[in-house]
């Protein structure tokens, strides 16, 4: 209808409406983008060279960061749980709690956050720069779909590597806890390891790895989405990297809660 003579009192409502619509548009376009990405992963023109290169940059080169995070987190967690357990004389269950905390929660989430900082930003910057220098338009002119050549290999690589990184983080995190427990808290090394093995169930580790796969997809998706939709030259690329990291981190935590509640209420 004719919206011209709106009373001034309605302006706040218009602002709210615009914000809601903007949010819906944003969510919708991310979902559509994800669907196109998944389709591109499943449908033939596959670029295996790109995939292997992404495996290397996303996965292998993230190992140092993930390993360092895991060892320090495991060590700090061990000290904290020792203190907490000491309040009701249950210091001895520290190995079990550390193992559970690392495999179910901290291993996947911390690996994903480090990957969000390292990989989401890098992907957004790379693709954003390609967008800014019109390389992506050139690619489309040469009838190469950027979804097949750029997006799908990154999504697939992150999906595959984050569970592997998480597995490494799990082991190193438990090792960090073990190190502190045996060197600083006079735990018996063999008993610590044995308690951990006896206590852990395979589902503890597997649920963490399933989470990690989802987080990996989120990390690569946010990088690709914000990179490909970057506008406005160099400043746009900077904005895209920030948005990629922030949105990836938030989505990781949200997905973490949803998946955890799904897994624990089975």
């Amino acid at each position, binding site marked *: 209808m004719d919206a011209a003579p709106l009373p001034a009192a309605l302006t706040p409502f218009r602002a709210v409406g615009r914000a809601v619509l903007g949010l819906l548009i944003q969510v919708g376009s991310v979902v559509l983008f994800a669907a196109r990405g998944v389709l591109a992963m499943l449908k033939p023109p596959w670029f295996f060279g790109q995939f292997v290169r992404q495996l290397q940059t996303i996965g*292998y*080169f993230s*190992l*140092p960061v*993930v*390993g360092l995070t895991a060892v320090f987190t495991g060590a700090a967690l061990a000290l904290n749980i020792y203190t907490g357990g000491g309040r*009701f*004389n*249950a*210091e*001895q*269950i520290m190995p079990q709690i550390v193992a559970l905390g690392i495999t179910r929660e901290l291993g996947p989430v911390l690996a994903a956050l480090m990957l969000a900082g390292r990989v989401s930003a890098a992907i957004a910057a790379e693709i954003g720069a390609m967008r800014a220098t019109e390389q992506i338009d050139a690619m489309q002119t040469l009838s190469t779909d950027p979804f097949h050549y750029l997006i799908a290999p990154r999504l697939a690589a992150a999906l595959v590597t984050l569970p592997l990184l998480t597995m*490494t983080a799990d*082991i*190193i995190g*438990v*090792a960090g806890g*073990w190190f502190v427990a045996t060197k600083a808290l006079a735990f*018996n*090394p*063999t*008993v610590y*390891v*044995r*308690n*951990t*093995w*006896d206590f852990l169930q395979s589902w503890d580790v597997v649920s963490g790895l399933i989470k990690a796969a989802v987080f990996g997809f989120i990390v690569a998706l946010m990088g690709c989405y914000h990179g490909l939709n970057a506008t406005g030259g160099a400043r746009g690329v900077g904005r895209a990297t920030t948005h990629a990291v922030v949105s990836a981190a938030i989505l990781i935590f949200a997905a973490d809660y949803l998946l955890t509640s799904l897994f624990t209420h089975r």
Partner: protein
Amino acid sequence: MAKQQWAEAGVGAAVLAAAAAFLIYSLSAGGSGGRAGGYDVSAKFGQVGSLAPGAGVRVAGVQIGTVTKITLDPKTFFAVVRFDLDPKVKLPSDSTAKITSDGLLGGAHVVIEPGSAADDIKSGGEIENTQGAVDLFGLIGQVLRPPAPAAGDAAPAAPASPAKAP
């Protein structure tokens, strides 16, 4: 770029190696944790509770060895526990071995109370005086729900006390 990537690749390999090393260690530690050099002593217990190989063996609170192996004697149904003890510590032959829990929820360790006999336990010997693990939760269960019909005359203190209280 190439040089930096070599460094990263090296660190990545080191991380993987550290993870693999710990995994291998923990897998091997699942078997037996005994180091060679100590002397071997065994003891039979009626109940070992949560005692596991690798647990400490202590005299007066000081660790002098570890539990290396726990097996079940199929004839007597006693648990046979083998210890690896510090060769500097000679235990009198009438020493007592007890299984004590580390905490309410934790694992267990073995406490040896030295006796006063003149001869020592040799390598491969056995500690004959033992006291098995106490089933803490079983005890709690007995206190909370006492076997009432058997103890007819022993009137529990609980119903009597509220009468005096006011």
